């Protein structure tokens, strides 16, 4: 029977009521008295020397208050990078400055040159058009391999070249890996592109900066997944504002998917300018602007090789990846192709030897950073594609080849520096096969063929590392921040609780799922628990929401704080019942003394804490509020097996996804409804990457997919109903809830099965196609069918 309340139940989301009635409060809904508007003049060339900016005509236009250029930011910090990667020679990565407004050069289409602050947005835009930048256009570097050639134009004149770093992982294993390849019975290799994507949360970014002269404090309202991180980065590294004078609020946020983690120039600008002009400054991105100013995702070019012995055991894996950084280093960009990608290359398999090389490259494109999955989709895609290709080359069942190489024993230390605590890959594969009726596929294929269509079935596995992350470990790996989470639990006198969490909900439903946990621990109704988030004035600190970490890390902090609350409440209860603290039990909101019929209710204890007339004041303080910081001691490792069935129209190349099944192991599940919703959304983004989405530049650095007219977002009729299952549960061994995280799985796990299915379909039709780069658009599929040997 499904549970009605607490952990494992699926209560309706309480946040839905405001969203469904138009009462949500998103950043663009916030208007501060006296507010001005800023519009940015952005570069329309990819690379150029900025010799000057003539703002004279614009400055006199109606409504214009002030125009800022790069010169106004001399002496102000640039946008910091939060992760320093050390290259294979032991040297730090090349790290160029990232000014708020361009100084000396423009480096991508969309690079902000000037900012017009005016009374209205349209006036600001009118004036921005009247600014005349003096740009001497330079040759752009767009293609990564050309960018690292000798003599290529440099994106940053002060760097040695366009190579941010050349990373080898694990460098000490390289010789052994090469030797294993030399001795392999079979080697499968594959060159592929992991296509550049744009995250496209439906809410474009917005920032409102406000300044109070009376106490010299600043407030920033912003569309962020992590307001505390923005406070830290912007306050300490950009504007020099101490935390106690800077409040960052991220109210309702309309989706993030990674792209709202990062600290952006517009946030710093609005905060800075509000103080300069002594009036609030608001910026609302248009969608077109978002395409050239939100950090992009993915964009890897990879060669992967898999070595197998005569019994088809994987003996070694070797990869070489070019990872696009874009024109500047976005907040966490260097970590994505390295520690979030190289560490995942073992996948679900016991491959003993792995070597990963990553060359991170500067180009004249929008900066690239984490997008849902961040590094892990890139790892999963190449691995699951090369395994599939190997199975086809060897003529073996792709499911059996995977099973044969599955890791069976846990904990398992991979050759790429992580230790999987738990998992059961056969269980999710068994569940998947139960879901998809593989035996009936041949008949379904025959039916498709009778209709002139080619049908394919693709399967893959995935593993991800999330619940990001142990601070001491990531510190060794170059992180410039801790990755713990905090929570404060405040119990009010009449027994209700407020949980202030550093996690941020921008669709994940924390306001509903977090109370399920706390209510379960105490044995009270969920309606007694309120979640507060998104404001640095509330939670003590917060690293925010990304990397499927909210419940695993933020939820754990909340559990720890609630445990402290319960411990203190038991002391109070012991005093009230004149019993020994050790004998107090808490169940269903009642404190009892073991072996007696004595009891006091939760509300009696909380009241006593605030009306301490009969209270052990000599031993404990009045009040009931506790804070905990939780720092995980390992990543969590969700895993699963996915299958996709497609039909290809051989006349047009169009791919229809007929079914998609996902069997996931997320460990324990707090709210199945929300978990399934997260998987659905991830699948849509993964299928979108596989079939539709493509952020493309031309060779001059002009963005070709600059609006929804050319960037194909998945729509309702592009997708099927999904089959999802999370009944295989190997709980995480090292966090108190046994949870692993579910936010990214769908996006990580789904692209390879889509591509595997299309290849399966084409080969069934006699087309010798072994790979097509994503997205598998009709024209690409048709092109592959019609150039390959028949």
């Amino acid at each position, binding site marked *: 029977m499904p549970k009605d309340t607490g952990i494992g139940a699926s209560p309706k989301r309480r946040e839905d009521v405001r969203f469904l009635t138009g009462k949500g409060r998103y950043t663009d*809904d916030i208007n501060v008295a006296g507010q001005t508007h800023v519009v940015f003049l952005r570069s329309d060339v990819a690379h150029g020397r900025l010799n000057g900016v003539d703002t004279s005509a614009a400055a006199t236009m109606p409504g214009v208050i002030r125009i800022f250029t790069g010169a106004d930011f001399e002496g102000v910090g640039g946008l910091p990078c939060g992760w320093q990667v050390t290259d294979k020679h032991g040297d730090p990565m090349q790290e160029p400055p990232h000014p708020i407004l361009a100084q000396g050069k423009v480096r991508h289409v969309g690079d902000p040159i000037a900012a017009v602050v005016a009374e209205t947005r349209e006036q600001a835009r009118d004036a921005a058009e009247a600014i005349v930048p003096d740009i001497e256009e330079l040759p752009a570097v767009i293609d990564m391999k050309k960018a690292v050639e000798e003599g290529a134009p440099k994106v940053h004149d002060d760097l040695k070249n366009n190579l941010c770093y050349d990373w080898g992982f694990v460098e000490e294993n390289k010789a052994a890996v090469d030797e294993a390849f030399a001795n392999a019975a079979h080697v499968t290799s594959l060159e592929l592109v992991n296509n550049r994507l744009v995250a496209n949360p*439906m809410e474009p970014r917005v920032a409102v900066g406000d300044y109070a002269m009376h106490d010299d404090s600043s407030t920033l309202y912003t569309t962020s997944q992590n307001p505390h991180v923005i406070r830290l980065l912007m306050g300490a590294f950009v504007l020099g504002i101490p935390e106690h004078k800077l409040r960052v609020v991220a109210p309702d946020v*309309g*989706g993030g998917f990674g792209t709202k983690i990062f600290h952006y120039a517009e946030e710093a600008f609005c905060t800075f300018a509000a103080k300069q002009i002594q009036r609030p400054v608001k910026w609302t991105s248009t969608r077109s602007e978002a395409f050239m100013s939100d950090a992009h995702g993915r964009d890897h070019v990879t060669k992967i090789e898999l070595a197998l012995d005569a019994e088809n055991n994987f003996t070694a894996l070797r990869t070489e990846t070019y990872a696009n950084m874009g024109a500047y280093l976005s907040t966490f960009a260097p970590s994505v192709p390295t520690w979030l990608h190289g560490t995942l290359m073992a996948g679900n398999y016991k491959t003993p030897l792995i070597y990963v090389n990553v060359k991170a490259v500067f180009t004249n494109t929008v900066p690239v950073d984490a997008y849902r999955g961040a590094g892990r989709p890139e790892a999963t895609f190449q691995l699951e594609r090369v395994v599939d290709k190997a199975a086809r080359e060897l003529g073996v069942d792709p499911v059996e080849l995977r099973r044969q190489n599955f890791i069976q024993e846990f904990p398992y230390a991979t050759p790429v520096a992580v230790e999987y605590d738990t998992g059961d890959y056969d269980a999710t594969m068994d569940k998947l096969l139960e879901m998809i009726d593989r035996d009936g596929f041949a008949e379904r294929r025959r039916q498709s063929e009778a209709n002139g269509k080619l049908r394919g079935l693709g399967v893959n596995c995935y593993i991800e590392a999330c619940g990001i992350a142990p601070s001491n470990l990531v510190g060794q790996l170059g992180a410039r921040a801790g990755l713990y989470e905090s929570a404060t639990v405040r119990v009010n006198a009449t027994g209700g609780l407020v949980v202030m969490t550093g996690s941020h909900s921008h669709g994940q439903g924390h306001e509903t799922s977090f109370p399920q946990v706390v209510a379960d621990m105490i044995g009270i109704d969920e309606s007694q628990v309120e979640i507060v988030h998104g404001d640095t004035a509330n939670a003590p600190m917060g690293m925010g929401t990304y990397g499927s970490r909210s419940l695993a890390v933020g939820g754990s902090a909340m559990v720890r704080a609630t445990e402290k609350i319960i411990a203190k409440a038991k002391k109070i209860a012991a005093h009230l019942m004149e019993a020994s603290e050790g004998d107090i039990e808490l169940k269903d909101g009642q404190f009892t003394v073991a072996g007696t019929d004595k009891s006091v209710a939760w509300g009696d204890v909380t009241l006593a804490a605030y009306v301490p007339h009969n209270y052990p004041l000599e031993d404990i303080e009045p009040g009931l509020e506790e804070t905990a910081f939780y720092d995980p001691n390992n990543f969590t490792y969700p895993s699963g097996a996915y299958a996709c069935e497609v039909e290809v129209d051989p006349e047009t190349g169009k791919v229809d996804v007929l079914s998609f099944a996902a069997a996931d192991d997320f460990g324990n599940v707090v709210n199945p409804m929300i978990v399934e919703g997260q998987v659905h959304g991830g699948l849509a*983004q993964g299928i979108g990457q596989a079939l539709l989405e493509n952020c493309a530049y031309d060779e001059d650095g002009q963005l070709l997919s600059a609006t929804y*007219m050319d960037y194909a977002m998945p729509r309702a009729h592009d997708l099927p109903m999904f089959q999802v299952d999370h009944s295989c549960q190997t709980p995480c061994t090292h966090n108190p809830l046994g949870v692993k995280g579910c936010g990214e799985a769908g996006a990580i796990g789904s692209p390879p099965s889509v591509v595997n299915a299309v290849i399966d379909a084409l080969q069934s039709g006699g087309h010798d196609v072994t790979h097509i780069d994503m997205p598998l658009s009709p024209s690409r599929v048709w092109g592959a069918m019609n150039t390959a040997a028949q």
Partner: protein
Amino acid sequence: MKKVTMTVNGAARSADAEGRTLLSDWLREGLRLTGTHVGCDTSQCGACVVHVNGEPVKSCSVFAQELDGAEVTTIEGMANADGSLGKVQQAFQDYHGLQCGFCTPGMVMAAAALLKENPQPSEAEVRHYLEGNICRCTGYHNIVKAVMAASGQAVEPVAAE
């Protein structure tokens, strides 16, 4: 500037509009009805869908002045008289048809328009009708279920467990 008056959610409402003032801006800025959202600038995303004289319209793609005297319904006008969620709204909550909530107003308005035109749509008809509404969170699975449920058709319960 011109004063524009419409019947919005059943009440006469007036606010100034320039020639270029879009209905979405007139609602959001002029009337402070911020439930209507703007998610793109190419008339693709559908977050801004409202009903004008009973028909679905992308409020970012029509000028306020052109609609002087029109009847407009926004997401703020979709609840029942007693303030409880209306049929479509309730189905979206019951079937987890929303996550971040940003596309939701447009989805609900589009869904309501569909059900008016086609009270018992098939799954394929729902998916086809929502062609002009982009959601980045849900993968549409639970939106489609919510719309089917709002039409009184049986659908699978929301969580398999």
